[in-house]
């Protein structure tokens, strides 16, 4: 899936399985996408769609019983799935950084904020004198909109939003090219949410980095990302620029997701998506969404649709968009 500018991150056919006594859960089942510089890409989906697994996989932090079973993750040209553990350790934070969900508990409770920023830099080989380190810390805190005295606090003295911004400060301290934000605002109220997202946007532009925002909040995605990828049952079912998606969702699932957002203009009942996501142990034959899809066709029950570019820069995996020429092709 090649896009206009050379990609800073190229994910190709990624598979991540969790091996349980009951079988292999295919959390990520053949996901490919590119990320270009300065771009904000969103990955949205329900719980269990595989989006958080992708975030961890990109950091190569999948732990047993999970395992990356196949595919390539090329970060600035290097396939991180092939490098040694030590090399991966150095790549983390320096080239690709994670801002995790659960800011409540992401920081070490017993050490000061200052130490937690400095130890990251130090373990990546930066030799800093005491003064240099403190200056760097002060500057980083300033970039995320925090006062310098936050450095001497312990995490429990900070509010949720402040903690999350500290995590962002840590994530940018080595100027990575890719920042993954995994549901960074899920535990925060809307006012603080906005602060944190604005901070993220600001630092991203300052660094000319790219952001992957993983989440389930379509509203948040609409306000923040350039392009949006919709995940369902471990696969990408639609990837398009965000405005296009909201103006005209192609995949039925995307349509239902957008439709479930309450609107300020129309009054009506809440609309959810009937049914439950499929078990990733036993995917239904054919398209995984067909049991819940309002536009399902007979073809959907037997053939798994592949993701294709059906319009310029609009990718979707759905038989609705198979041209007559492809209806006889095998998947």
């Amino acid at each position, binding site marked *: 899936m090649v896009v206009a500018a050379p990609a800073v991150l190229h994910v190709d056919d990624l598979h991540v399985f969790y091996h349980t006594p009951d079988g292999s859960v295919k959390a990520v089942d053949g996901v490919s996408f590119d990320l270009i510089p300065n771009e904000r890409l969103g990955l949205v989906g329900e719980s269990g769609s595989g989006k958080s697994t992708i975030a961890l996989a990109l950091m190569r932090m999948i732990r047993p019983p999970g395992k990356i079973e196949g595919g390539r993750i090329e970060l600035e040209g290097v396939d991180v799935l092939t490098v040694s553990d030590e090399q991966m350790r150095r790549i983390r934070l*320096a080239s690709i950084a994670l801002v995790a969900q659960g800011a409540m508990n992401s*920081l*070490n409770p*017993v050490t000061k904020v200052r130490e937690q920023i400095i130890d990251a830099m130090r*373990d990546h080989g930066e030799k800093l004198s005491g003064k240099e380190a403190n200056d760097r810390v002060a500057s980083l805190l300033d970039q995320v909109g925090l006062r310098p005295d936050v450095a001497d606090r312990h995490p429990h003295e900070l509010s949720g939003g402040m903690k999350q911004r500290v995590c962002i400060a840590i994530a940018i301290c080595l100027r990575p090219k890719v920042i993954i934000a995994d549901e960074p605002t899920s535990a925060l109220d809307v006012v603080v949410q906005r602060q944190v997202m604005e901070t993220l946007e600001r630092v991203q532009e300052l660094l000319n980095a790219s952001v992957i925002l993983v989440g389930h909040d379509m509203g948040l995605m609409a306000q923040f990302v350039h392009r949006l990828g919709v995940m369902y049952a471990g696969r990408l079912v639609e990837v398009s620029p965000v405005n296009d998606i909201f103006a005209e969702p192609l995949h039925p699932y995307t349509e239902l997701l957008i439709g479930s957002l309450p609107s300020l203009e129309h009054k009506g009942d809440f609309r959810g998506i009937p049914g439950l996501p499929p078990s990733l142990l036993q995917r239904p034959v054919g398209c995984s969404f067909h049991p819940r899809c309002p536009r399902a066709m007979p073809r959907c029950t037997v053939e798994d649709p592949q993701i294709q570019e059906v319009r310029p820069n609009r990718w979707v995996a759905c038989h609705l968009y198979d041209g007559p020429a492809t209806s006889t092709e095998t998947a």
Partner: protein
Amino acid sequence: MRAEYLFKRLGMFVLILWLASTVNFILPRLGGQDPIRAQLGAQAAMGGNSQVGMKEMIAEYDKRFGLDKPLIEQYLTYLNDTLHLEFNFSMSAYPTKVIDIIWRSLPWTIVLLGVTTLLAWLLGTILGALLTQPNAPRILRFILAPILTLSAIPFFLLGLLLIYLLGFQLKWFPLSGGFDQGIVPGLDPKVIANMAYHSILPALSIILASIGFWTLGMRGVMVSTQGEDYLLFAEAKGLRKTTVFSRYAIRNALLPQLTALALALGNIVSGAVLVEVVFQYPGVGSLLYQSIRASDFYMIQGVVFIIIVAIGLATLVLDLIYPLLDPRISYARK
């Protein structure tokens, strides 16, 4: 905020001391017949060596705690005595004062207990932490099972076994006592070496029987700590393995492990008392045993009180160390 914590802890300490002395005061007087007075009388009637000084002691006792005195006055006298560590004369070793005998025995117990408890805690904690690392030396895994089995056995039982195996059969260590007969305990290096030699078996009993507990505890704490989000984030930060292990995992796991130490002190001391009995080690444990056998009430009361004070102090010290390690404590009220 820090001051409030300090006062609360000190208050607990004082409360415990008060409770201990009050209970010591009330209990003998509950059953109708005062066992202390009875013992004094019985010993006086026995004649011979045990009679020495009984008359004086009985007179003294009646003067201070006689039935004609109002209870509250007796109580206050008693509290005052206890505060000054005035536990009267030993009934079985008159005219030696209880407190003097205790002072002679206390250092032995403190050294034995202090060294072994700290050693066992340190070694167990390190072992427990290492056991959670996949690249730890493999022998460690084999040590775990025997250590755990040993920890199920009470200290003094292990002591008996060690006396038999290492002292009696193999003759590697002395069978009892704190020092060879004929030696006067002192600060002469040879004497100290001899004393240390005698302490090895009692120390081993305590260390071997308690290390399993600390190991298991630390391993459990490390496992829960490793499930915490901040460890995930630490790995995502690309920190070195040693940094994550020491500054993030162990540093946090030490806190509950230290709490466990404070909570276990009472049991450790109880166990050590029995160890001293088994080894005839000249600490307060043996003292307690001998005074129970002689029904020397004053001595028993004195020893029990001192032990409670010692544990209370140790707990207090640990409580005060804790906020230094856990910054959340100064602020959290409950």
